[in-house]
């Protein structure tokens, strides 16, 4: 754990006080957002009153897929490419979010409980670049 960690894109998630996704929620209509937009985007919301919201905790795996081949840029990965699972997760806090899964396709099942984690997705220049992922609970 001595490796230097850096977010693959800054400002989207945090590891302090447990892993969380830095989004927003509209005070008017309750719509959750990740990442945070400048305004509420719901066409049914007359107002727009966004407050920052850190989404964290568990959820349910809605569905999943596998990247059996390396995606094209701008995705970055450690060579040699290893297939990874991508989950679509319904967080208990009301957000449906995509993210890489820790584990193989054989471990996955739709409806499984998962937890949000922050984990490296690739390494460059002696640093681990992190993103959010999900782990089976």
């Amino acid at each position, binding site marked *: 754990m001595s490796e230097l960690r850096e977010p*693959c*894109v800054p400002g*989207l998630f945090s590891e302090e006080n447990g892993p969380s*996704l830095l*989004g927003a929620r509209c005070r008017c209509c309750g*719509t*959750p*957002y*990740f*990442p945070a937009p400048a305004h509420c*985007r*719901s*066409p*049914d919301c007359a107002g727009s009153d966004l407050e920052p919201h850190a989404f964290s905790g568990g959820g349910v795996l*809605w*569905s*999943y*897929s*596998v*990247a*059996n*081949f390396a*995606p*094209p*840029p*701008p*995705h*970055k*990965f450690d060579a040699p490419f290893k*297939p*990874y699972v*991508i989950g*679509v997760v*319904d*967080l208990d806090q*009301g*957000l*449906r*979010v*995509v*993210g*890489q899964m820790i584990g193989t*396709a054989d471990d996955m099942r*739709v*409806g499984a409980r998962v937890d949000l984690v922050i984990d490296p*997705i690739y390494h460059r220049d002696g640093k681990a670049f992190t*993103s*959010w992922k999900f782990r089976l609970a």
Partner: protein
Amino acid sequence: MQEVVVLGVGMHRFGKTGDAIVGNKSVTELCRAAVDMALKDAGVSWRQIEAVSAASSRFSGGKGWGLNGNDIVEDMGSTGIPVYNLSAGCAAGGNAFNVGYSLVAGGIHDMVLVVGGEVMPKGMIQTSGLDDVNDPEFLRQACVGMPGPTFWSTLARRRMYDYGTTEEQMAKVTVKARQCAVGNPYARFQKAVTVEEVLASPYVSDPLRLFEICPVSNGAAAAIICSAAMARRFTRKPITVATSTVATISFDDALPRSLAGPVPAGSSFHTEAKSAVMRAFERSGIGPREISFTELQDNTCYYELAFPEEWGLCDEGEAERLVEAGDTAPTGRMPINPSGGFVSFGEATTAMGVFQIAELTWQLRGEAGARQVPNARVGLAQTNGLGGNATAAILKR
């Protein structure tokens, strides 16, 4: 509103850069072949074309600005006509058809060329063209890495969970598609495959396999459309455009297109496609059960199962049974993609909306040969594109 008809269509056979079909032809050469064929089919000269509605490509030609219609006009001979370049991701060909249709229907022009063509880069499509953290598609690829096929396999996996769909049933969709393409002179793949061969092909994105996902292709398609009044000077048997529609995604769509969305109340997938198709039914007064056959965007076999149900062509959860009974074949009761579809052609992204118009026209004229839908009277076409774009068209004889 003027009634709009399709007077002529043309296509360059789809292929892969360097093969015997398309070799190293430029997108302009491919489009030229399709346009020449469409003009000849229509009995119209280039000088009679009053406007061009073209699909904008991100991948080839267009001077890097998506000015693909301008390339075609320069190549055919600059006659000073207006050119409309339409961008809608993979739905661009459908959008180009819609704008051409709207120009004729609205009485702005009487004779319009609609065209789309592509020379595609090898491999999986790089969905984000930007290196910009404000671009949601960039974030999706940088933070997660979701190549196009994983979007489809996520949906396919969920369908397996919801309806018990098996990998063998999905393979049967491909077997049907490739059987349709046998003898279709424009298809890239013209050889039938077996369920065993499909299931032996490697996963591109588990649970979807190589033979179940359309590759990228080079190809082009063109259509000459005009007012019904003008058509009488050229043909006794024009194909009528009952309607053409465009739609975009709804806020309540259940599958995040960027990183996240609200957990949805229901399962409203592909809201852009559904809106376009429902509007088409509404505007034409033609219902889903009156459709003789459908050309839909089968980037993967999953869509041949999901879309017919979402649009009311059949009942929910019924699609697998229809496939297994042969009902989605050209001779079945709900023919889907008699051309062979994207799975047999490969996707020349922005050409596809026009490719569908050509196939609908051949089918409705009864010129589709071995893949002919018996007594085809009404055809439905649908495309989807990045950005939450979709189009639909209904043609009838």
